[in-house]
């Protein structure tokens, strides 16, 4: 009798718990769905807008479903940048994308290469002034590009690097953040590896290439994603240093496509360009994410 009562009570409690869990799941999902809507809506507007003709958006309509001009708009954006209407003359999207990819890859690779080497030096070698070097690198964290942009610009002018890919990339390559991250990672590499390598007869460069680099693959992949997007989103510096249309990057070029009030903007082409500008970072994230998640799940110690 007593037994049966307890069992029934337990069952009731279990049902209540189940219902409560189901309810909290619903709440969580509702909040998540709302978040997705807020984030995705502008992108949806852009994607949909890029498939209508120029007059639809020109009239102030905001269509929520696809139009029929998709192919024409994307072809126009890709090949000419919609220069048929604008008198200023636009740059075709393929060229801007190419420039942006170049810049972002060079910045990411350059940053990773330099910070790997400087972190390696700071962690594995003891030389006079090692900590001074480390702190000097660290202090530059407090000086973003914008703060030193005028002296940097002057240096680039004096070096004759205005309007060149080098001028665009080089000032952005030195990276305190990445150096710091690699330093922290290198500090977790056990001393025993260093010593085993010494006994095996590996010199510093050999140890770097055969041990440190393979162990850092995961970190490099993660940093590449972050730094590629950092490079891709650069706005102020390319705007200053590049006036040559052939070197226009897509983020800057897109804003230049939006004219002043008296000209009619080709919003459909601009939106198509914006959609195209989103593709490379998304591809990098998707591709590299698979790689570094694989690296993370195969954690080796």
């Amino acid at each position, binding site marked *: 009798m007593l037994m049966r009562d307890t069992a029934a009570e337990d069952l009731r409690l279990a049902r209540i718990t189940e219902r409560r869990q189901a309810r909290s799941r619903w709440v969580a999902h509702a909040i998540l769905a709302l978040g997705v809507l807020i984030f995705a809506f502008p992108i949806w507007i852009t994607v949909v807008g890029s498939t209508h003709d120029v007059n639809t958006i020109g009239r102030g309509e905001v269509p929520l479903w696809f139009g029929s001009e998709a192919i024409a708009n994307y072809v126009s954006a890709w090949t000419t940048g919609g220069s048929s209407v604008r008198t200023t003359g636009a740059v075709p999207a393929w060229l801007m994308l190419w420039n942006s990819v170049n810049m972002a890859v060079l910045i990411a690779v350059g940053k990773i290469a330099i910070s790997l080497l400087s972190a390696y030096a700071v962690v594995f070698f003891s030389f006079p002034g090692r900590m001074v070097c480390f702190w000097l690198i660290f202090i530059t964290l407090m000086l973003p590009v914008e703060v030193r942009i005028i002296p940097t610009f002057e240096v680039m002018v004096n070096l004759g690097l205005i309007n060149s890919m080098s001028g665009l990339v080089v000032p952005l390559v030195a990276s305190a953040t990445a150096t710091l991250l690699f330093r922290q990672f290198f500090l977790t590499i056990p001393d025993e*590896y260093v*010593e085993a390598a010494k006994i095996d007869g590996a010199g510093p460069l050999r140890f770097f290439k055969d041990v440190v680099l393979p162990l850092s693959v995961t970190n490099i992949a993660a940093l590449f994603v972050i730094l590629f997007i950092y490079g891709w989103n650069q706005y102020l510096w390319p705007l200053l240093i590049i006036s040559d249309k052939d070197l226009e990057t897509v983020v800057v070029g897109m804003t230049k496509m939006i004219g002043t009030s008296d000209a009619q903007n080709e919003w459909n082409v601009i939106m198509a360009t914006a959609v195209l500008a989103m593709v490379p970072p998304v591809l990098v994230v998707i591709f590299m994410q698979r790689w570094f998640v694989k690296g993370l799940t195969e954690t080796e*110690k």
Partner: protein
Amino acid sequence: MATLSLSSVKKQFGQTQVLHGIDLEVQDGEMIVVVGASGCGKSTLLRIVAGLETPSSGTVRIDGRDVTKLEPADRDIAMVFQNYALYPHMSVFENMAFGLTLRKFPKEEIKRRVDNAARILDITSLLERKPKALSGGQRQRVAMGRAIVRDPKVFLFDEPLSNLDAKLRVQMRAEIRRLQKRLGVTSLFVTHDQVEAMTLGDRLVVMHQGRAAQVASPMDVWGTPADTYVAGFIGSPAMNFLKAELAAGGRAARLQAGPTLPFADGPRPGADTDPLTIGIRPEHVEHAPHAPDALPLAIELIEPLGSETVIHGRLPGGEVLVARLPLAASAIGAVLPVLLPAAAWHIFAAGGARLASSNPSPG
């Protein structure tokens, strides 16, 4: 294959003197175990031999060649690390081959050596695996394999068994011993475990505070410890130390616990009432129910080991005495009559050094 010789090796870290001048001659093919508590300098000593640390003064010679200033790679040594230090991104084969690859050995030679070492260690089936897919014992073998393929003059072992569980440790201990004998490579093995030291070494170096307290064969270290530190460190349960003073013109000791007992092996130098320490191992304490001169031991703790029982108790003077007796049962609080046979005594002077008989061949 090679001899190893250290002469007055000293090491200082800042103000701290870690090694106070170590001298050691290791014979060809000998297994020397350096044993001591943590912080005694044993690892520093090994690292100096490996070339991972430079001595503040003194020289290290391998096969007569002065290697004190040479890089680890140029010393022709191999080392097995405590955490094995296997490169996690390389397969077992690559781990073992790494040192040979760097030395530009031809591919076939590398393969031959690795296969050979893998066969000796019974890890042939693991060659393609990554270290993370191996158990502790297997990693241990790979670490040994990495040392073997190099065919070095000296093996260095830095507490290689301390990360294994107890059963595996005993097994690997025997295996290392067999392997070392079979290959005949001069070896230096560092450990803090006295059982490991006793079972592995041809000779032991017992380190204490940066000095070699005693260098001798395991049985000599056990049978005639050089000082109270060595006596207390080697042997389990640890040796009992009883306060006493010299009596009867150096022929006997008056124990603090009461009786005055004559030495079994002749007189000691010194004046009467000079303080002494009498050491006696727990297994040498005798249970003597009918002896009239037995000492009463008040039992405080009983540890049954199966075949024997370890009894912790107090002597009349209040001194603690541990006895290892073939007793099945006894009760806490009971009084056990025990004898401390003088033939099993270790006699130490006030400073802790062994006090040998001034008459080395008694009757």
